[in-house]
């Protein structure tokens, strides 16, 4: 076991730097430390200007996603011991503009997320608390549960080569979340989501590279969700061609 390990950190200060640079730091090597522990150590003891997002330290909040040696990871789940002997290169998630150091601009993702209305939509507005809960069987829950595990960490966007060159692409997590609500028996809003999901820059930009599903820390499988939506959209398209079958 080494005593220390080197971290090469992506540094960019929007007011001072024309372009980013890499800065190397040595941190103590601990068997049970993850990359996020090393970053917190550096910020607390060595360089307070280091900027990155984090919160829960346990793979739930989805804030600490970064590129670790070129691979999108939650840094709270990336153990230093898996990168021996180092150095470990840490960069902000690829595909997003960099605000400062490891912090990326979220605007594009947030705008796309809200565009698919990721909440339960009911046709009748008159329903109130008094009309009771929406009941669901275990089988109806199982139909979408996998897609509800998404923590919006955006690792799938950083893994998606299509999103990197086609910024209009709605992208894996948002399309999986749209599928999550479209498959929910309580929801009646599918037709409001289709214009975004079934558009050229929705599911049809996807070439099924499949890496979004490979990097997902919650096993959501956005690639599968997108292929299923392609089939549904194709069925809808074929029906729209029928003279009488128009839904």
């Amino acid at each position, binding site marked *: 076991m080494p005593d220390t390990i080197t971290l090469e950190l992506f540094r960019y200060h929007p007011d001072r730097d024309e372009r980013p640079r890499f800065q190397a730091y040595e941190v103590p090597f601990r068997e049970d430390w993850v990359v996020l522990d090393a970053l917190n150590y550096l910020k607390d003891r060595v360089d307070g200007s280091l900027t990155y997002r984090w919160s829960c330290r346990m793979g739930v909040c989805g804030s600490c996603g970064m590129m670790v040696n070129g691979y999108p990871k939650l840094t709270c789940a990336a153990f230093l011991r898996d990168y021996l002997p180092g150095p470990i290169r840490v960069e902000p998630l690829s595909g997003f503009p960099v605000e400062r150091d490891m912090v990326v601009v979220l605007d594009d993702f947030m705008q796309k997320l809200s565009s698919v209305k990721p909440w339960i939509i009911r046709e009748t507005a008159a329903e109130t608390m008094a009309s009771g809960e929406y009941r669901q069987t275990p089988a109806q829950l199982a139909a979408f549960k996998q897609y509800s595990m998404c923590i919006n960490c955006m690792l799938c966007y950083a893994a998606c*080569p*299509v999103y990197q*060159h*086609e910024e209009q692409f709605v992208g894996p997590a948002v399309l999986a979340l749209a599928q999550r609500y479209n498959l929910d028996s309580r929801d009646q809003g599918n*037709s409001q989501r*289709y*214009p975004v999901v*079934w*558009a*050229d820059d929705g599911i*049809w930009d996807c*070439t099924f590279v499949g890496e979004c599903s490979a990097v997902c820390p919650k096993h959501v499988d956005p690639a599968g969700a997108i292929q299923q939506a*392609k089939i549904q*959209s*194709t069925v*809808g*398209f*074929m029906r*729209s061609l029928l003279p009488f079958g128009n839904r």
Partner: protein
Amino acid sequence: MRYSNEPLFWSLFSAGGMLAALLLPVLIVLTGFVLPADEIAFSHLQDIFSNALIRLVLFALAFLVFMHWANRFRHTLVDMGLKSLHTPISVLSYVVAIAGTAWAALVLLG
């Protein structure tokens, strides 16, 4: 709602991908390796390729494999950075695929 045209191209792409997955491995072995080893008599080949049903299946295979190719080809070139040529690449791919299909019809259905 207004539909994208992609479902049309994608369903042809998918049908071609399925046929290719099921038939191409064995066909490549037969026509690429067994034929050159002189294992199949000419008269037998003549019988096979004169059969109307087999010709129809081969035509479907050719048409769908060409459509499968066109879809992957246009997307791959965009993925490799030719985004600005997206439309001409798509048009060209399908023109080539349709020309190939016309030739297949001439050979198999003529």
